[in-house]
């Protein structure tokens, strides 16, 4: 039995009066890819933002329940920045920061106080290689990250998410703005990363979760409808009828 990397217990989240997560509990095992599927507005992104506590920066949010990462309650942690460095986060739309490609990747280490140029050079190359972007940009690391194409920017975003050497990688619908070929390249990257990281893969593409995730959670209207091994979720008889209908495109 593997260790639980993230444990969520009775997590409730509300924006003002409106509750968007209604007390969900689950655990993510170490070094697994957990797929999270569900229609829009089901609370997938909010869940990720609770885990790395960027939800704190949204006005009027109330979080109840506990989230533990490596056994430590994220709401009690002394160093929220260290928590966030432990978690790589990739947003749905590619965000190239208005900096050079090099600085995009070096931003996180520098924010953490690392300025050793030789180490940074090596590290930037490593992250860009991991994100399958190095060969395309190695000759123009000084050009702007914002000038890259959408697919390249998304890989740059992934390189940046890897740049603070996270133990957990959260991907929030990473493929909605990029083409299928790039998507497949990134999926190959994820299969590699699974060896060293715990990955939460939020996706709108049911097939993507099926391809990559060992276990999958079906989140709907702020509740976990069902969470089981992907074979069961995507099989002929998941426990809940709604899962079957969603996965097979009957609703949602």
């Amino acid at each position, binding site marked *: 039995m593997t260790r639980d990397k993230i444990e969520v217990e009775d997590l409730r989240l509300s924006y003002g009066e409106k509750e968007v997560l209604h007390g969900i509990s689950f655990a993510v095992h170490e070094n697994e890819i957990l797929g999270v599927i569900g229609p829009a507005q089901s609370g997938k992104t909010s869940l990720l933002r609770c885990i790395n506590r960027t939800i704190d920066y949204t006005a009027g949010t109330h979080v109840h329940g506990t989230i533990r990462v490596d056994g430590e309650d994220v709401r009690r942690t002394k160093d929220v920045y*260290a928590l966030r*460095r432990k978690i790589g986060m990739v947003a749905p739309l590619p965000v190239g920061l208005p900096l050079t490609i090099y600085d995009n990747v070096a931003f996180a280490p520098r924010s953490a106080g690392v300025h050793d140029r030789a180490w940074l050079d090596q590290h930037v190359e490593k992250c860009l290689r991991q994100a399958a972007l190095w060969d395309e940009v190695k000759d123009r690391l000084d050009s702007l990250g914002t000038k890259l194409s959408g697919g390249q920017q998304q890989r740059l975003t992934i390189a940046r998410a890897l740049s603070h050497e996270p133990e957990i990688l959260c991907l929030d619908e990473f493929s909605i703005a990029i083409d299928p070929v790039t998507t497949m390249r990134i999926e190959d990257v994820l299969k590699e990363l699974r060896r060293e990281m715990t990955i939460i893969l939020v996706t709108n593409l049911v097939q993507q979760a099926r391809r990559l995730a060992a276990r999958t959670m079906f989140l709907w209207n702020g509740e976990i409808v069902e969470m089981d091994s992907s074979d069961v979720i995507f099989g002929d008889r998941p426990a809940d009828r709604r899962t079957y209908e969603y996965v097979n495109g009957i609703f949602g």
Partner: protein
Amino acid sequence: MTRFAETPHIRRKLRNELLARLFFGAMAMAMVVPLLLIVGFVVIKGAPAMTWEFFTENPRRGGTAGGIWPALVGTLYLIILSLCVSAPIGVLAAVYLNEYARENWLTRIVNLAVVNLAGVPSIVHGLFGLGAFVYALHFGKSILAASLTLSIMTLPVIIASTKEALASVPMSFREACWNVGASRWQTIWHIVLPNSISGILTGVILQVSRAAGETAPVMLTGVATFKAIEGHGLFLYHLREQCMALSMHLFYIRTQASGAPEELSYAIASTLLGVVLAVNATAIVFRIYLRSRKKW
């Protein structure tokens, strides 16, 4: 097949399109006319009086002769000193309001105060400055009191324009920074400010025109009708002295000094315009420079 035949509807649509274009275009062009007329009128009428002595000498015979040197220096003092106070405070306040403040009653009160302060007439600011800086703080009628009064007047507009500039930086940039463990301040310093600085500076520098042009607030708090500059030091005026200012000097020459030649007031107006346009031109050049480095 006549699928693309010209129907009455299409003709009307094309005609309206043309009319709208012409009409809106004319309105836009019309904006140039008053500016050219004002500048042309003032400069042409004032040109005869604009000699080297006009810019470099003290006024003589109650302002009807001599130059405007002290008023020019006084206006520059007021602009620079007031901006030294209002620009840093305004920009820092705006950064707080836009980047840190949560939506609560305190923030709402501050925002409400900013909006309403921006709407206070300048003469009221003058009266406030008189009560607060001249009397209560015992600065006396002085450059210090007048500059502080101008700062209070320009502050809310600087806050508003800075907030606008900060808000134009996409939220996704901030989230990307937070996600990799950057603090809010690191995010602001490395991403938000570099990408909004051109808008911030434009807003700040545009307030120079207001500070330079206002008569009422400085008249009450520290600008005299006559205050010659003696000697040639680096600091021509002392902060606790009164000074002259172009706006006030123009008002005085035109209304109080009998026998002043007409071209004199136009020459003063030209100088005031020159100061403001020079500052605005600097702002534009700076903005072009910064925009050429804009990164998204």
